């Protein structure tokens, strides 16, 4: 079972077991990670599950679709080379060790 580390905006690290097939957002929600709002529940309709992906992982994740890129462009403090919407990343076995950092605010 892949283990994923979420780093909160104030530096707290929480490592959670992930179920392959669920999204990164659902993983965070199941682990009650603070700072992921996911107001739309994973429909790629808001930008409140924004995360910064660890640079060593960014290129290893599934590519972004246009809708996600457009929403991220208007998210709170997006980073051009690290930002993703966690609802659009389905966790797979090879994501063991993935680290993402949460922004100081969502939306």
């Amino acid at each position, binding site marked *: 079972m892949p283990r994923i580390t979420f780093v909160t905006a104030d530096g707290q690290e929480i490592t959670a077991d992930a179920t392959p097939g669920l999204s990164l957002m659902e993983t965070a929600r199941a682990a*009650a990670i*603070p700072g992921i709002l996911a*107001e*739309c*529940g994973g*429909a790629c309709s808001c930008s409140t599950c924004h995360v910064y992906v660890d640079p060593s992982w960014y290129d290893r994740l599934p590519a972004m679709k246009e809708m996600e890129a457009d929403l991220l462009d208007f998210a709170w403090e997006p980073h051009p080379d690290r930002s993703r919407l966690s609802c659009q990343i389905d966790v797979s076995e090879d994501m063991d060790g993935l680290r993402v950092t949460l922004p100081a605010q969502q939306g």
Partner: protein
Amino acid sequence: MDPIAIVGAGQAGLALAAKLRSLGCETPIRLIGAETAPPYQRPPLSKKYMLGDMSRERLYLRPESFYPEAGIALATGAPVAAVEAAAKVLVLADGTRLACSAIALCTGAEPIRLPEAAGGGLNGVYTMRTLADAEAMAPEFRPGQRVLIVGGGYIGLEAAAVAAARGLQVTLVEMAPRLLARVACAETAEWFRALHARHGVDIRTATGLSELVGTGGRVRAARLSDGSELPVDFVIAGIGVRPSTALAEAAGLAVSNGIAVDALGQTSAPGIHAAGDCTSFPHRSGRIRLESVPHAIAQAETVAAAMLGQGAPYVARPWFWSDQYDVKLQIAGLNAGHDRVIRRPGEAPGSVSHWYFAGPALLAVDAMNNPRAYMTAKRLIETGRSPDPAALADVSVPLKALPLTQTEPA
């Protein structure tokens, strides 16, 4: 210490319970739901879930292990029969009396049903609100089945999209002269009419349902206001919801288009708060009620803080979304009171946004496959700024370069 009781285990109830805990509240919490499922997401019921693209477990907002870990005693299938406001006692349907230190009502809203006299009680007539509704209806979604959808609002249109995508023969009737009459401008309504027509949905506006006709207690036809009779296999009523206020009314709480609360979610009874779809609350110079997940979460979190004496007044930032076929609709703001609509084509083919203005002030936007327009408008509305309408209509002016004026206090 007597527990804090949250009546209603939907999106608002769960958000309220979780927020109490994250704010450090150590009082026992009872989260009491009438439905048998643990708190779940409703929006996918009329979208992904009905398409068969999503498992039941993925609807759940938290794994069932969350509740004991968070110290939240979740009771499902446990309708509340009465609230004794002065004593802060809940009476459960089985007669159990529960003394509470505080009570929050998160009872949500319930779909309006077709009248019994019009055949609303026949088998094969459904509403689209709960997981139980969706599961009851699921076996009807077979290619070739003839479904009648009553109501051309967003729920009706989402149901039509799912049914058409699954190969059903879909007829949608709407009494008003056009779709989305209560919630969107004529431009948006026409855009969705054309979308559904392209997918083979038979849309009949200015057409009401006179009655449903059954055989052996099962619906088999619909008589429409134009005198025609339509054979049907099943029917979905999407004719709106009403706030679930019966408990509050019986308890003597003030009710006005929802359980009336102040900006901190306080009802007219001391020690009793309310949040979510069931409430009406102060907004700008008036009082509104919202049917939306983001509102339910945000108001519930405000109320949780208020119950701990930390509340800041709730300011609604309304937004909504809908998925139909390959179209994502995002709505920012509330369009009530608009006097004109500016259309702005998006960059991608088939993407467009409709911007609602009252005088110079931007009120709302409907964005179809156009998240950039939606996000831009949402930021502007939340900060009280409005774009110049002429520049907005000119696609050569980029969204980020629109001339802005402050039209509401920021």
